[in-house]
């Protein structure tokens, strides 16, 4: 078997033991890698119905098919556990060296079971596993932890995935960082902390072989060259932050906790402004010829010296979404989040939620007491220092930060219970995961795409904003095409997330990002790597299967029809400014679109999956358990 070793490494933290599971080639043909394989490993190894913080919730790594080969942007792995934010599948992706080291150690996946009673650092040295004491690493930031570990081993090629102080403190949206990249969403950091797992390091010394290396090199060269052209220009020059001005113009830039879609000071928090005033260097993940990460630094003022990579989703969450027009405060907030290892998107929306609670008079100045401000402070929208302080308080779970660290869904429950308020109406989450940087009131296909999303409010899993923004659908209305559009966009994204390949490469195969442009090229890459004989339909099925396994996981964990919903605000509070003004997605519209979507997927009206459909997809055992 090329491209895979056929082996999954199991590690039990409770018993401190390890074993190897061998998987047949047919299993790989169904689950491939990335989010699909990680979700499948989670399906196989979780104690059904367990609390996300229970030892029965496994940490599941699944490597990528192209990791460790020259295929551009193929150095990625998937990570899955039951999410403490949503209670459903928490599947994330991260790029760079870690996946490559894992590939060279000849592991297709790693499943970590149980929980340790002492903080532990797992070291996977090719086939050998060591349980190392992690006490001296506690409190170190994500990057610092990685550096400390490499220093310990004296080997640059030892790559680590770690949690930072936010994860250690079990901030519910703590995440996992490797090589400056994050498996960012759904709260993996908190799951790791529940197991007292600080870091997983890998040293892989074996060479990677593929079925047809000369062909794979030729294909990779061509894509690498194409990736230096216009197809990736947006990512290379300004990075994704260039979306700020576009989103603002189109009226869906989250502003003051999604109250509006237009921010008066968008220029000041744009990718263009960042480029002119703060950019230090552009860097890449390992195995990536594009390089989109805009390393940005604050050069003067109270946050001078702060430096981190800035991207659109992080930037909007802490700037326009908090009404903050001070780029230096925004960079500082993202830096706090990155270094302490938490999801900047969930953090930003939790902060903006608190700011709205303050402006609406539910929370008072005295609720914001902390060591830095013993009398409390006034976190109005636009107050950059308040944003920075709240980020620190969440990281440390200090004062109100302890509540905000639970994410908006739980925080609203706590605050509403305490004050008799209705702040849940502006708790901007879907299934418990905070909403991304696209206000969906005037992106109606996307609103439904988010509602049915298996991991909650996520723009990476549903790509239905794309047809809405491009005008392929009328973003302000609904019609009978939307089920199909949302289902196909979600399955399209799932192909990339499963291989995984970074989606920024999607136009570089043939110049066209659509299925006809990309799937045959991706099939060629798969075949040259594995020696299989994949065609267009096989590639298309990757996405369908990936999405189905995650949905199946959710059904088994107790998913109900009413879980497919969007925040109250998007259904009831119209915006007042910009192209999106006056629009909401009504319950009727949402219901109508969701029914269309279930029908397109071939599911029942209740959103359950027929047995036969699962059998046809090669998932017989899943059909037995949850098929109807």
């Amino acid at each position: 078997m090329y491209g895979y070793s056929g082996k999954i490494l199991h590690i039990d933290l409770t018993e401190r033991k390890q074993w190897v599971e061998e998987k047949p080639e047919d299993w790989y043909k169904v689950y491939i890698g990335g989010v699909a394989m990680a979700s499948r490993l989670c399906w196989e190894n979780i104690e059904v119905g367990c609390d996300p913080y229970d030892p029965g919730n496994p940490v599941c790594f699944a490597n990528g098919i192209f990791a460790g080969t020259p295929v551009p942007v193929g150095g990625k792995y998937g990570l899955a556990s039951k999410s403490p934010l949503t209670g459903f599948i928490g599947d994330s992706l991260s790029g760079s060296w870690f996946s490559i080291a894992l590939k060279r150690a000849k592991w297709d996946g790693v499943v970590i079971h149980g929980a340790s009673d002492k903080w532990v650092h797992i070291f996977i040295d090719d086939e050998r596993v060591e349980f190392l004491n992690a006490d001296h690493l506690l409190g170190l930031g994500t990057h610092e932890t990685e550096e400390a570990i490499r220093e310990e081993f004296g080997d640059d090629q030892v790559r680590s995935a770690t949690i930072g102080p936010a994860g250690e403190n079990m901030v519910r949206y703590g995440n996992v960082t490797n090589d400056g990249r994050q498996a960012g969403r759904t709260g993996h950091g908190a799951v790791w902390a529940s197991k007292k797992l600080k870091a997983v390091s890998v040293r892989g010394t074996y060479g990677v072989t593929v079925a047809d290396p000369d062909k794979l090199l030729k294909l990779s060269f061509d894509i690498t060259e194409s990736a230096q052209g216009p197809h990736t220009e947006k990512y290379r020059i300004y990075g994704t932050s260039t979306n700020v001005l576009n989103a603002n113009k189109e009226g869906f830039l989250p502003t003051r906790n999604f109250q509006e879609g237009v921010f008066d000071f968008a220029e000041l928090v744009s990718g263009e402004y960042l480029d002119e005033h703060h950019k230090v260097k552009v860097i890449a993940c390992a195995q990536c010829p594009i390089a989109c990460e805009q390393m940005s630094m604050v050069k003067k003022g109270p946050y001078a010296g702060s430096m981190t990579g800035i991207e659109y989703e992080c930037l909007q969450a802490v700037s326009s979404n908090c009404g903050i027009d001070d780029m230096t405060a925004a960079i500082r907030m993202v830096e706090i989040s990155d270094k302490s290892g938490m999801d900047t998107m969930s953090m930003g929306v939790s902060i903006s939620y608190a700011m709205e609670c303050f402006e609406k008079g539910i929370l008072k100045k005295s609720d914001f007491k902390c060591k830095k401000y013993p009398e409390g402070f006034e976190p109005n929208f636009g107050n950059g220092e308040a944003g920075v302080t709240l980020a620190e308080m969440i990281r440390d779970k200090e004062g109100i930060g302890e509540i905000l660290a639970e994410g908006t869904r739980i925080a609203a429950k706590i605050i509403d219970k305490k004050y008799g308020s209705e702040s849940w109406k502006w708790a901007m989450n879907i299934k418990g995961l905070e909403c991304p940087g696209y206000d969906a009131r005037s992106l109606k296909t996307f609103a439904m795409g988010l509602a049915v999303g298996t991991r909650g409010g996520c723009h990476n899993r549903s790509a239905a904003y794309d047809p809405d923004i491009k005008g392929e659908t009328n973003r302000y209305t609904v019609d009978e095409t939307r089920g199909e559009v949302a289902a196909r966009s979600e399955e399209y994204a799932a192909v990339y997330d499963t291989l995984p390949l970074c989606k920024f490469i999607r136009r570089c195969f043939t110049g066209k990002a659509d299925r006809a442009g990309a799937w045959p090229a991706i099939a060629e890459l798969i075949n040259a790597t594995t020696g299989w004989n994949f065609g267009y339909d096989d590639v298309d099925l990757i996405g369908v299967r990936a999405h189905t396994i995650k949905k199946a996981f959710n059904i088994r964990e107790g998913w109900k029809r009413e879980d497919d919903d969007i925040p109250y605000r998007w259904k009831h509070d119209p915006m007042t400014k910009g192209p999106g003004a006056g629009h909401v997605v009504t319950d009727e519209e949402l219901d109508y679109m969701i029914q269309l979507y279930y029908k397109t997927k071939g599911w029942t009206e209740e959103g359950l999956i027929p047995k036969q459909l699962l059998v046809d997809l090669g998932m017989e055992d899943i059909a037995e358990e949850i098929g109807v």
Partner: protein
Amino acid sequence: MVASTSKYKYIVCDPELCIGCQLCEYICSYTKTGEFNSYRSRIRTVRVDEVLITAVACRTCENAPCVIACTRDALTQDTETGIIRIDPQKCDGCAWCIEACDFGAISINHQTKLAEFCNQCEDVEDGPQCVKICPKDALEYTTPDQRSQRTRHKLVKQSLDFPTKAKDPR
């Protein structure tokens, strides 16, 4: 950084342009071993800080210290090209050459017990493969003299801000 005393061509990396993608390591290890493995690459990327990134390969020093340090006369230097060559019959992987190299450009293969370093793909038809693949043109295969000349040209053009043929007339 330690100055090189080479008059020969060798592969250098511009840290301003290097993005740390490691594609040079992939192509190098594949060219030399048929497998993709950074441990077997003769050029190595270095990331000291989040933004301090470059790649390092043999700098073909004059009177190369590695050649002098070799206790078994396994290393020789080509007087025309400066390329260091190894006699696998003589090398026993003792690593004295590593001690002598100011650039960390040598590694020992623990399987073969041989020293490994860049030979500028002298046995490959179209020259150094890493230079060919580098997506950002951060790697170049030149002599120090050629690079100083290029820098002078660049400086003059920049300081005069004079339109050149290279610029798109539109």
